[in-house]
């Protein structure tokens, strides 16, 4: 265990900095920019996807050549998508259209 750890966790630092930058960018888009609402929504959605990608690559070991990429948490990712869909679709179903 001890011999395979690097001195500086480069991946983690880059990931950390990038995720903070993306968050600031998203906050600026909504608060600071004067883009139209549709553009704002599109941009922050896009940023969210990139953000998720960074998490998966930099922190969650989705690509890990040492283990022949054998640790992709498909199961958890699938359930994450399902939960997110329930939250979004469910809220729209319940709150917006109010059948």
């Amino acid at each position, binding site marked *: *265990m*001890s011999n395979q750890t690097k001195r500086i966790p480069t991946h983690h630092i880059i990931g950390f900095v990038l995720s903070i930058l993306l968050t600031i960018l998203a906050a600026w888009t909504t608060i600071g920019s004067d883009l139209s609402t549709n553009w704002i929504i599109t941009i922050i959605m896009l940023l969210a996807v990139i953000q998720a990608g960074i998490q998966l690559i930099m922190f969650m070991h989705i690509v890990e050549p040492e283990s022949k990429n054998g640790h992709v948490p498909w199961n*958890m990712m699938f*359930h994450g998508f399902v*939960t997110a869909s329930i939250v979004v679709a469910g*809220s729209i179903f319940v709150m917006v259209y*109010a059948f």
Partner: protein
Amino acid sequence: MNLDEFFVTGEPLIYAGMVSIVLVTSAMIFLLTYFKKWGWLWREWLTTVDHKKIGVMYILSALAMLFRGGVDALMMRVQLAFPDLNFLNAQHYNEIFTTHGTIMIIFMAMPFLIGLMNIIVPLQIGARDFAFPFVNALSFWSFFFGALLFNISFVIGGSPDAGWTSYTPLAGAAMNPGPGQNFYLLGLQLSGIGTLATGINLMVTILKMRAPGMKLFKMPIFSWSTLVTSFIIIFAFPILTVALALMTIDRIFGSQFFTLTGEGLPMMWANLFWMWGHPEVYIVILPAFGIFSEVIATFAKKRIFGYHAMVWSMILIAGLSFLVWVHHFFTMGAGAFVNSVFSVSTMLIAVPTGVKIFNWLGTLYKSKIQFTTPMMWALAFIPSFVIGGVTGVMLGMAAADYQFHNSYFLIAHFHYVLIAGTVFACFAGLEYWYPKMFGHKLNEKLGKLSFWLFVIGFHVTFLPQYFLGLDGMPRRLFDTAPEWFTLNFISTVGAFGMGAGFALFVFNIYYSYRTSQRETTGDSWDGRTLEWATPTPIPHYNFATLPTIRDIDAFVEMKKRNETTYDESKLKPIHMPNNSGQPFIMMALLFMASFALVFEWITLSVIFLVGVLIMMVIRSFDEDDGHHVEVEEIKETERSLRGL
């Protein structure tokens, strides 16, 4: 800010609270100094990463929270015992029902169960600690400081008063200025970090660290319930995190997510809250089911009936628990179609719950029941929980819920499931695993007395509340009417019975410490699962060696084959984590940052947050790889524990 804005003033009961806090704190400081125990406290407890010790700290804190929440409850019941009693005024009553609900669910039920999981799950699956022991310590301190933050609100700054559900717009900045509601938001946020981390930690531990041969479907039911619960935690808690963050931003930085003005959607809070909130009620009931399954199998001396049905029903419950949230606000006015959909899903979830009842009955059927105190709790649980479940289905019918909603009928429902389910299970679990944790049993006589006081008190308290609800008494009412007097009075009498039962339970801990016979074998109840195979007291590395698991009731099988967890020929050095003060310090800093944010002292909060960040950097470059327990040391320990 003046001091009298900082401290809560003008309430005699709260002054009494302050005095007792000062007295207890100084007594503790005095005792620790007098007996020179500060070093011991730091080395053995504050810096520990041992899952067993962390579990004990969880349970102790949960008992303290049960006390605090219980005092809140008794105060409410006193106020409601007589019409027009001016024991608590309206504002004080609002604060107390808010802190009571929040503390009981977030700071009592969950930590109690997580404490039991901490101690028992690694032992049941044959692991030497959690997958991430450091994170486990971090989780505990995050819960501890979150609870501390929430609890000090009643003397500093003022308690939150918008209910444990904190519906907006009532809980928003416009109608609820001041720090009270911020305590709720940040206290929950802080402890939520720990809950989420524990969910991940337990899931990885269970998936990756089981003993050789223990397939998932050979795992004890309690560990299964923990796995399913972690799953719900991982997917439900982020929703709460986001909702809390949005309301915090609303209140402190003036955004308009849940406000009445500026296109805010106040009901979106209720929507998000219950998307977490309903899964949450299953987070606190599934482990309870797991505990009862273990207790019933042990004292019926039979393998659990319908193991597979048991597991699958839990998985089904976990899935469905994400699809029923709207039943908490049928009366919002979403329309008949929406309500019907959620009515049906709500009734569906009662089916797997019913299946489990039959599993327990099947296990008991034609068995030779041994009536120990933990078993008594389990037996009392079954019929009481059925009442709670059946009334839940009644509430689940949207049309009928227009009558029941926000009445005492609802109050009775959730106390029947939460107390008869979760609280009975916590008591049963603590008594059942007590000899494993502390090396002696709790006294059975006192245990049974406290059982009867508590169970009878419970029914006397909450059964009348169904009828009060049907009579139209609304919840969250601080002043009752004469026509509800009789039932309310009976209910208050019952509440004091429960209080006495709890007091006796705690006294029993002290009494048994003084008088109980010490355990020598480690297998106190003729147990069936792996935790009973360890010697008592459990060596800090848990298992010297692990046998290959062949059966659900692993230890029954081991006893037949004369196997133990100590096979001298297979000994190897054991890799264990080192203690660390970092979790405590990091979370203490986060506590101070949160405290500053409660009072909206932004600069101070940022300063402490930078401190947290520095701690994270320190941790990132930390190269502590733990230590090895050498074979000689294991031999020595095991030989003396096993009397070889």
